[in-house]
């Protein structure tokens, strides 16, 4: 980084520009248009809107106009970077970086950041009478501290073991941003990529927390309640038994698949004679995520795999309580795009295993989605189950499953949303590319 630009300086150079010149752009792509910045008294830098590349370079190194426009934009950029980045002393927070525990002990917490960052931890503290006592104090994780330091919201001193006499005696300068990066990256599993993802999402207003608590005092969402409720799970079990029964019953009735002639249209039964039934009878290949893929290796995912969920992410609109965090809106894996390959099926399966199932997009589906695939038999034969229901529906009058009364979501929307979602942030030297991998369920949404 250029030190001359880094050092805050007052009195930004002013350029006089015609205000009418500034209406030339409005596109989405391209670099920052620094000329959009307010010209004088740039006390608080604002991230400018993006401009538009409005000409191709002329042959021979640019015309007079092009050079003029470029110079103007460059001057504006330097002006913006030269501006004083100041923070009111009333909103500055103070902290001490403790390398041995990889935490920042916040001694003075001010500002809105601490409503979603930092947690309290009990640490042995020297109290007034000279004895050590476990006392709760506010601590920041490395990424949280670095983010606040980088923003200029936190002044952080490095903890020196020799001097523990408290805040009043802290002397000297706080850590610079460079020092903070050098000290903090690498601590508590924080790679540069993970910090970049954290900072990017925080700047957008998301609340980002660790998925695996780095210490016992770190608050995490309460474990998910398995299933949807006792009665439903009872019904589920019942129907899975039924479907097992019907499967074997129908196997017996029709004989198993004849592998050289899979197409069987009954001579007599009218129900068989439709395109959808022909296609149903052709669904002979096992499908779906309910059964884990076979592997000849005991652990198909290497322990060194980078695909581990690292962050929980909450939308800005989510009501987030720091002490009792809700279930996250998204969960994120951060990887280095240059060293990691796209996850294998086994890695994805392992990720999906710990994720909750999301309901298909509105209009919502009925209470029990067709996820009754606890047994492989049920997966293999959705056909027979529905046939069974169709034929014997009058036998089950009190079925708690209104099959057609509620609107079904649009199949395309449901297919695209998938059932379980994981966000993977592929970071390539600072450029973050987010992808959403969802468990597809084409078998549940046949088009015919």
């Amino acid at each position, binding site marked *: 980084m250029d030190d001359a630009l880094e050092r805050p300086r007052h009195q930004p150079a002013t350029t006089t520009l015609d205000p009418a*010149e500034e209406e*030339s752009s409005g596109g989405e792509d391209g670099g920052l248009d620094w000329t959009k910045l307010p010209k004088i008294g740039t006390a608080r830098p604002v991230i400018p809107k993006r401009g538009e590349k409005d000409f191709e370079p002329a042959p021979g190194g640019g*015309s*007079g*106009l092009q050079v003029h426009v470029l110079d103007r934009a460059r001057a504006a950029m330097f002006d913006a970077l030269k501006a004083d980045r100041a923070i009111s002393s009333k909103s500055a927070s103070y902290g001490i970086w403790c390398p041995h525990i990889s935490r920042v002990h916040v001694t003075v917490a001010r500002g809105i950041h601490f409503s979603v960052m930092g947690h309290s931890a009990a640490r042995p503290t020297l109290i007034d009478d000279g004895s050590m006592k476990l006392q709760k104090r506010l601590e920041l994780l490395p990424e949280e501290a670095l983010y606040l330091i980088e923003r200029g919201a936190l002044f952080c001193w490095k903890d020196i073991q020799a001097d523990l006499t408290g805040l009043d005696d802290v002397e000297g300068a706080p850590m610079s941003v460079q020092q903070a990066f050098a000290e903090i990256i690498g601590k508590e599993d924080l790679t540069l990529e993970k910090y970049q993802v954290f900072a*990017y*999402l925080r700047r*957008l*207003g*998301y609340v980002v927390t660790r998925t695996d608590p780095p210490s016992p005092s770190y608050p995490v969402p309460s474990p998910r309640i398995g299933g949807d409720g006792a009665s439903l799970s009872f019904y589920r079990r019942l129907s899975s038994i039924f479907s097992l029964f019907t499967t074997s019953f129908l196997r017996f009735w029709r004989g198993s*698949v004849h*592998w*050289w*002639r899979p197409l069987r*249209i009954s001579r*007599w*039964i*009218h129900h068989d*004679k439709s*395109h*959808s039934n*022909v*296609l*149903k009878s*052709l*669904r*002979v*290949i096992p*499908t*779906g995520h309910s*059964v884990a*893929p*076979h*592997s*000849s*290796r005991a652990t198909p995912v290497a322990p060194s795999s980078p695909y581990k969920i690292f962050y929980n992410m909450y*939308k*800005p*609109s989510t009501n987030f309580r720091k002490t009792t965090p809700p279930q996250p809106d*998204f969960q994120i894996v951060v990887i280095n795009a240059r060293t990691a*390959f796209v996850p*294998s*099926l086994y890695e*994805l399966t392992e990720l999906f295993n710990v994720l909750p199932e999301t309901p298909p997009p509105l209009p919502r589906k009925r209470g029990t989605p067709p996820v009754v695939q606890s047994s492989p038999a049920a997966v293999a034969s959705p056909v027979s189950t529905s046939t069974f229901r169709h034929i014997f529906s009058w036998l089950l009058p009190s079925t708690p499953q209104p099959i057609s009364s509620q609107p079904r979501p649009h199949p395309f929307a449901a*297919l*695209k949303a*998938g059932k379980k979602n994981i966000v993977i942030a*592929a970071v390539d030297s600072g450029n973050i*590319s*987010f*992808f*959403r991998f*969802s*468990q*597809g369920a084409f*078998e549940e*949404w*046949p*088009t*015919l």
Partner: protein
Amino acid sequence: MSLINQTSHSKGSFKSSSRRAETARVYAHPIPIIFPEPTYKFLGLSLTRPLNPHCTAVFDPLTRSAWISNSGDATLLWQRGFFGKGDLSRSEPSWLARQINARQMKGKGFTSEEITAKRRAERKQFKLDRAKAMAAAAAEAETAFNEQGRVIAPGIAPDGTRIIPSAATWKPTSASVLSEQSPLDVAPGEEEDIEPIKDLEHLQLSLQEAFFLVWALDCLTILHPETNMSFTLAEIWNTFQNAHIPSSVPQLNAPSPPRFDNPFLVSYIAYHHYRSLGWVVKSGIKFCVDYLLYKRGPVFQHAEFAIVVIPVYEDPEDQANSPFTLQNAEPFTWSWLSTINRVNSQVQKTLILSYITIPAESRVSPTILSSPACFAHYSVREVVLRRFIPARMRD
């Protein structure tokens, strides 16, 4: 209405809705089998027999495809399930119709291919016009700067309107349409018109499509290219697998140990899976993927999903010993995944990674490969891939 007979862009809503009804009628059947309405039905029983057509194709080992030269069969397979591709057309075998059209109508009507060509020519013209307007605007701004030292916004007239045409405002001039007229309209003379045009086109089925029609739907017979004898199912099973054995000259029925990772089997698993779920499956080579899924068919709407078939070996040993190098069996780099996803989101398709597991030979005996019963040991799992844009997900 078939694309072949399409005369012009529809003008009124009545016309377009009647055309839609005609399209729905022509392409009413999703598979070649037809079930006539039963005349007599009693207690869910009926005696109506399904009508299953019997088409004939010739296996062509060099192109790894099956050719249907009978135009009746070709039309039938295209209209009922969009199987195959005309070898002289982009999809529907419409070469003959285009030739006849070109002779008879002499530019009064267009086939769909001609309409596309016209649209492309117009687009090209639009881009040229736009580039010209932009260059002119830049030159004007340059002059204003040099002469008066003023910086003006290029491309905006003094009254605030934009001079540079956009796709919405640009209209083709009559000249650009005329210049595009296909050369076919100019050529034919009197004598040629009398001579009937011979249909030189055949419908070309991929091996996956052919096997689906032969095995799953039982409506196609495949002939040996040399002897013209019809293949038995077991012969087709072996022949189609051997078509992928790497050798300079593919040999029919060449003995070789069957393998679970035969490229034909792996791609057939994916093809069959989506066909059996009712999708119309077409090749996706133009979008860096293996298959495209259409809801009812290409004449009804654009493809919704793009499928990348990713074989997954249950046993890495099998992969190491394999004579085949299956596409996508090696892990993707992120840059390649981004490439595919970019291409497909550009054309409004959702990318689906379709993982096909290949049974380990240590788990399943390869003897089962002697019949399609081996299909029960493969499995298909989809993963939907979409870009996640945090800036737009904040709510």
